[in-house]
């Protein structure tokens, strides 16, 4: 799917942050009926060929391409993971559905691990 990732892992503080994030987020399991919303403290900056997501607290920074931007913008709190993957997959019928859905889930998982997205608490889903 070609979503590019850019993360300031060279910075020692970020390395520490990522280590702790990895430990913390290993418990997160992304389910199809999870609803995702954007973290309001993150900064989203669109540019010509994509966008940057930046967390001013941790310094986490991620570049997302145009498809990534579409996916991120669908995470408004009122769509489930299944809704999002289906909506995107519809526009890429030349890519096997299983593959694109898996790629999108991995991408969403990345954004959650970097705290740019979070699960919306509902009766069905619970944030760990």
């Amino acid at each position: 799917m070609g979503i590019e990732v850019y993360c300031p892992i060279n910075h020692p503080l970020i390395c520490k942050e990522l280590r702790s994030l990895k430990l913390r987020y290993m418990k997160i399991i992304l389910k199809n009926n999870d609803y995702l919303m954007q973290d309001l403290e993150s900064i989203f900056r669109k540019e010509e060929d994509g966008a940057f997501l930046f967390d001013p607290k941790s310094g986490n920074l991620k570049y997302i391409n145009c498809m990534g931007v579409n996916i991120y913008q669908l995470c408004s709190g009122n769509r489930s993971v299944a809704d999002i993957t289906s909506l995107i997959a519809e526009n890429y019928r030349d890519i096997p559905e299983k593959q694109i859905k898996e790629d999108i889930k991995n991408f969403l998982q990345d954004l959650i691990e970097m705290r740019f997205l979070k699960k919306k608490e509902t009766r069905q889903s619970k944030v760990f």
Partner: protein
Amino acid sequence: MTENDREYPLSTIYLYLTDRCNLRCSHCWITPAHNRSGENINSKIDMQYLKKAIIDAKSIGLTCVKLTGGEPFLRKDILDLIDFLSSNDIIVDIETNGTLLNEEIVERLNDSSVNQVSVSLDGASEESHESIRKVAGCYQKALDGLSLLTKNDIGTQIIMSLYGGNILDIEKLADIADSMGVNSLKINPIMPTGRGKDLFTNEENLSVEKLLSINRWIEEELSLKYDSINICFDIPTGLKSLKSITSSQLYECNILNIIGILADGGISLCGIGQTETDLVMGNIIKDDIRNVWQNHHLLKKLRKDLPKNLTGICGRCIFKFRCLGACRASAYSLTGNLNSSFFLCDEAYKNGIFPKSRMIN
């Protein structure tokens, strides 16, 4: 390793082997004394101290040593030092003007752990190169040195110091790099430090607008012309295009993982201690480099301040955690403050051309 070493490993030492040089470059930020004859000189600091510092630094994370100067090949004992570094599995990078390289030296380099030799070449002709390097004959000698290196398959880079007088040489130098099999061309806009201050006073530097336009041209046209050389234009990350940030190698100064050892053994924040003596934190003759790295108040403050206490546009940039304010040495040299914003980003911001999408607020 202590917790501090794990968080802030001292991964690289910039070793300023000598404060003398056989050239007299008008932009040099180190301002070495001129060594007219080009003959080898005696060590200013005994090798035993250097070796001890390297072994000590290895225990707190050292993996790479950059040998620079002055002109490092003026030192008689540089090859012995390279052998020592190789035998300790330390990666060696060298910055040289190339004029003192010969077959014997290059053969020794070939048998060592030298990763890359960067040769300074500021113009694609004798006239252009020597007008800034100020010594007749140095252009051909640098080319000969470069040729020896590439023939021996040693990783090579051309470093070009860019100012108003050599813009037209960029493409010609890239052609030279390509034809000689050089791996990369790194273009450094001159800095207002050391002798470079005079070039700025005489307005021979390039405006940030001009630098950004050159950057675009390199990214969109020049880089596409060559298959095998990597062209790096060294401007701060916040001023680079999104494509460049995500698709090419960025040369960023990891100042929190670097220390400089000056020609007299001074332990300094990179090489800036040569001209800004406030930034010398000890000397390897009498101080343990591990103790300086772990406990010196200047480094502790730097770790606390970077990036969160950067001021001006650097404090507002989304790349601050990665870029760390570009060159802190130049910030200090210009303002006396290690937290002040980098002059190029500052100029871009004041001129309204710093990308708004890169600002936190």
